[in-house]
C-alpha cells in the first residue's frame, strides 16, 4: 500500500474567486497580516500496490486528464512517505 498525493492549484495568473472570498473573510473576522489567499485541491490516492514509477506515472496521467484542468490549473504529484 502506498499513498500518492496530487495537489491542484489554479495557475498563478488565473483569477481565484474562492481565494479572494477567503481573503475577504480573513479581514472581516479580524485575522490580520494576510496579503493574499489562493485555494486549491488535494487528492490523497491509495494505491493497491507499491508506488512504482509506473504506478506514479499512471497517477500523473490521471491528474492531467481527470483531476486537474491543465488549461487553467497546475498540479504536482508526490508519493507520501511512511504510510
Amino acid at each position, binding site marked *: 500500500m502506498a499513498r500518492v498525493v496530487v495537489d491542484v492549484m*489554479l*495557475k*498563478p*495568473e*488565473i*483569477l*481565484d*474567486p474562492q481565494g*479572494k*472570498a477567503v481573503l*475577504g473573510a480573513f479581514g472581516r473576522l479580524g485575522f490580520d497580516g494576510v496579503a493574499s489567499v489562493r485555494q486549491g485541491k488535494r487528492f490523497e490516492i491509495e494505491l493497491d500496490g507499491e508506488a512504482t514509477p509506473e504506478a506514479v506515472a499512471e497517477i500523473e496521467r490521471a491528474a492531467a486528464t481527470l483531476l486537474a*484542468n491543465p*488549461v*487553467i490549473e497546475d498540479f504536482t504529484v508526490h508519493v507520501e512517505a511512511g504510510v
Partner: protein
Amino acid sequence: MIDTVELAGKTPDQPQPWDELGLKADEYQRIRDILGRRPTNAELAMYSVMWSEHCSYKSSKVHLRQFGEKAPASDALLVGMGQNAGVVDIGHGYAITFKIESHNHPSYVEPYQGAATGVGGIVRDILAMGARPVAVMDSLRFGPLDADDTHRVLPGVVAGVGGYGNCLGLPNIGGEVVFDPSYAANPLVNALCVGVMKHEDIHLANATGVGNKVVLFGARTGGDGIGGASILASESFDDSKPSKRPAVQVGDPFMEKVLIECCLELFEARVVEAIQDLGAAGISCATSELASNGDGGMYVQLEKVLLRDPSLTPGEIMMSESQERMMGVVTPENLDAFLAITARWDVETAVIGEVTGTGRLIIDWHGETIVDVDPRTVAHDGPVYERPFARPEWQDELQAAGPEGLARPAGGDELRGTLLRLLGSPNLASKSWITDQYDRYVLGNTVLAQPEDAGVLRIDEETGLGVAIATDGNGRYAKLDPYTGAQLALAEAYRNVATTGARPLAVTDGLNFGSPEDPAVMWQFAEAIRGLADGCQALGTPVTGGNVSLYNQTGDTAILPTAIVGVLGVLDDVARRTPQGFRESGQVVYLLGETRDEFGGSEWAWAEHGHLGGRPPSVDLAAERELAEILVNASRDGLIDAAHDLSDGGLAVALVESVLRYGVGARVWVPDGVDPFVFLFSESQARAIVAVPRSEEVRFTDMCSARRFAHQRIGVVDDGGELDVQGLFTVPVEELRTAHESTLASAFEG
C-alpha cells in the same frame, strides 16, 4: 527597459514582433505611417488587438453597412448600431436594450469558463448602456451528439452558461441547441442579454468634458486572456514572471453581480458621465473607444491600474482581458460621491487619468510616455478590406442534388416510425436536459421560457407591459442558399415572437462564419448580410447591433454559415400572451399558412437520410407579416388559447410539442387531396398551428378570411392521452414523451 515613445523615435530600425501579433506587413507599415515613427511595444500591442478581425470588423465592415443603409424607418429605435448595444422604445417610458455576442473559440479551449465569461461579457455590454440586465438567452452549436469532443465541450458550456447566469440571478429564457458535424472543433456559443431602463437613463459610452476623470473599477487586472501580449514580454528580463500566459479568462459572477448593482447606483446617483465595459482588448479598447467617441483626448497613467499580478508589463496590462472590470468617466465634482459608492459596494477603484482636448490618447508608465496616438486611428480607422468573394463552384451542384429522390415513408406505420425517430433525433429532441440546468424563473418576471416559442418577460408590473425574444438560425438552409437562409432565420425568430402575441420590433444578429480569406465563405457572408438587411427592411424591424465571428473553421472546412437572429417584440399586457401547449379538450386546431412539398435542408432529409441538398423552403415575408398580425390580434382579442410556429420537422413535430406541454391528446386529420407525408413533415414557412375555443371559432376564421390568409381546420384537442392522426396512426402521449425526452439525457448521463 520600458519601450517609450522617445526611445521609439531614436530606434526606428528595432525589429518588432508584428507578425506574431497577427498584423500583416502593410498594416504594420500603416501604423508607422500614422505615427511617423515605429510604434512602441505598448502601441503595437494596442493596434494589434484593436485592428484584429474580432475588434475592427475589417473584413465585415463593408457589408455590415447595409444594416444602416437599408434600415427601415422605425419610431422605436432610440440608439442604433455602434454603441455597446442598441436601444428600443417599448412605450410607457421604458426602453429595452439587447444584444447577442459570440464567445466561440474560448468555449472550445475551456468550455466552462469560455461560456461563462461569454455571458459575463454581454451582461456588461447591456449594463454599460445604463440598463438593468433582466434576462439572458444562449444559442449553441455543437458537433455530432455522439462525438467524443461534444461530450467534452457541451457539458462544460452548458454548466458555464448556467453557472454564471444562475449566480448573477438572471433567468435564462430561451435559445437553441443544434448539432452538426461542421461544428465539431468549432462550437458556437452566442449569448444574448436583455436590459431594461427608462428613456432618460440611457447612457452612451463617450468620454466628454475636458478635465473629467477616467476611473477603472471592478476586478483587478491580471494576466488572463492575454493572447499575443506575451510576445512583448521580452521587454522585461524579470525571471519571476509566470512562464506561460493562458489565453483563457476566468470569471467571477459574484463580482459581476456587485458590479451591476454598483453601476446602477452610480447611474441613479448621476455621478458618472459614461461607463464602458472592458471586454476584448481590455484597456486598449476602452480608452481608445471612449476617447474617440468623445472629445478626442485622454491622458492615462497606466501604473495606477490596480494589478493582481505585479509582474505584468505595460503592454500586457493594456491587452489583459481580465473580467468584471468597467471604466467610468466622472466629473471632478462628482468624484468623491463616485468613490463613496464604489467603496460601499467594496469595488476597488483607481483614478487612472482624465479626458483632454488634445485629440491624443497619451499613456504614461511611471512618468515616461509609452503611448501617444490619435485614438480614432486605433478604434475606428483600422484597416478595411474588400475581401474577394465568389459563389463557390459546388453551390450549383449542391442545389441540384435536391431531396426529391429520397425514399419517403408511406402508410401509417412508416409515418409513425418516422415521427418517433425524428422526435428523438438530436436536433428535434427535447433540450430540457440542458435548459433544466438554467434558472428560468428567478426575478419573478418570466412569463414564458423554454421550451416555448419565445421567452416572454414582464417589464412593468402595473400595466403588464412586456417583451418577447426569440433566437433562430438554420445553418443548413443557409448553406443551400445564404441569402434565403439568413431571411429564414429572421422569419423564424420573427414568427416565434409573434406566436406568443408580441409585436416584433427590432433585431440583433450573431453572424458566425468560416475564414473571410476564403472567397466562398466571404460570398456566404455577403449574401447572408444582404438577405438579412433586405429581410429586416421588408419586415420593418431594424438591426440594432450584434456581433461577427469569423475564422470558425478547421483546416479548409468552414462551419455551416450560421446567422443567428434575435428578434425582440413587445406585448402590451403579458397576461394576454399565447402559450405553446394545448390544454382544453374540445378546442379546434387550425393550421395557418400554405403547405408545399419543401424538404430541401429539412430535418427529415438530414436525420433520416443524412442528406443536405436542393433549395431551402421559399421565403414569403409578406405572408410572415400577415401571419404575425393574425397571431398578435388573435392574442390581444382572446381568440386563441395556444399557438406554435412550424419550423424544423414541420407540422408533426409542432403538434407533438403542443401536446406534450400539458400532456393532453389531439385528434388530427389530413385534409382531402393532401399527401400525408408532406402534410406532416414539410418545412414550408409562414405557418403556425393554433388552438381556438369553439366560442371564438367564427370570429377567428372570419379574421383569417378577411385577410385572405390560408387556414385549415385540421383537428381537435382532446384528453384521450394520445396523438391520433386519423386513418394513419396513433401514438400514446407517454410514448411521444419518451421518444422526445430521452435522447439528451441518455447521451450525457451515466
